[in-house]
């Protein structure tokens, strides 16, 4: 019974993710694309829950579905365009792009389906994921963690200066 629920949940979430991602690509109105992008992020958060990564699911909802979706909505609103219904057109090389993406998907699917992966190299633990992640982040990866914090600060300051324009000294 539990296994059946897992299978059904996976297929529902995968359908949500893939169909809303297709909508992001093909819809003509960029506002609809931005809203479907937020739905894709929420679906990916559900996939993370299925993979026992509940902390990552919370981070995904807060950072992607919250902050990044809002930022993109602001970007859409701050750049005006004459016709909103045709605001997200394909460019002249759309056919080439489709062929490249479809070819890459075929290659990757073939490689995934013909490879046997080594499963379960380490024994599973009962530790909850946020505790394990915190231990790794603040012990083994402290320097990278601080570097990421520095990168975020610098990127935010840089984004403000680029968008606002720097004054002459």
């Amino acid at each position, binding site marked *: 019974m539990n296994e059946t629920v897992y299978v059904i949940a996976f297929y529902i979430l995968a359908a949500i993710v893939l169909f809303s991602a297709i909508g992001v690509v093909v819809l003509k109105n960029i506002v609809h694309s931005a809203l479907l992008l937020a739905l894709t992020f929420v679906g990916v958060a559900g996939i993370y829950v299925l993979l026992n990564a509940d902390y990552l699911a919370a981070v995904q909802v807060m950072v992607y579905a919250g902050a990044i979706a809002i930022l993109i909505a602001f970007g859409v609103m*701050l750049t005006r365009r004459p016709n909103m219904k045709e605001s997200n057109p394909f*460019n002249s090389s759309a056919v080439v792009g489709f062929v490249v993406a479809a070819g890459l998907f075929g290659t990757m699917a073939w490689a995934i389906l013909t490879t046997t992966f080594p499963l379960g190299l380490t024994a599973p633990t009962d530790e909850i994921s946020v505790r394990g992640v915190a231990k790794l982040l603040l012990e083994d990866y402290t320097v990278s963690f601080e570097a*990421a914090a520095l990168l975020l600060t610098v990127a935010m300051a840089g984004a403000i200066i680029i968008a606002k*324009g720097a004054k002459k000294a």
Partner: protein
Amino acid sequence: MTIGLTHFLVLGAALFCLGLFCALSKRNLIAILMGIELMLNAVNVNLIAFNKFVAPGSFEGQVFSIFIIAVAAAEVAVGLALVISIYRDRTTSSAEELNWLKL
């Protein structure tokens, strides 16, 4: 029928290719940024799936995903700032009109 590593990897591959198609074939700069976000999400799905099925006792894959999320947030902020700056300068957000360096 059980859901294994392969299912999650194929889902990640499909999401990555949709993002790639979006980034390659769209005219609007913001739509290109959306495609890049889709690709980064697909990478995260792959990392966490490998973490669960290959090394279920460790959390290294999830830590890598956190770094990817942090870098993606920085990237989208700077990218949108550039889009807004270009828009203020040229009143366009179309990637095909950004060809002033061409002769």
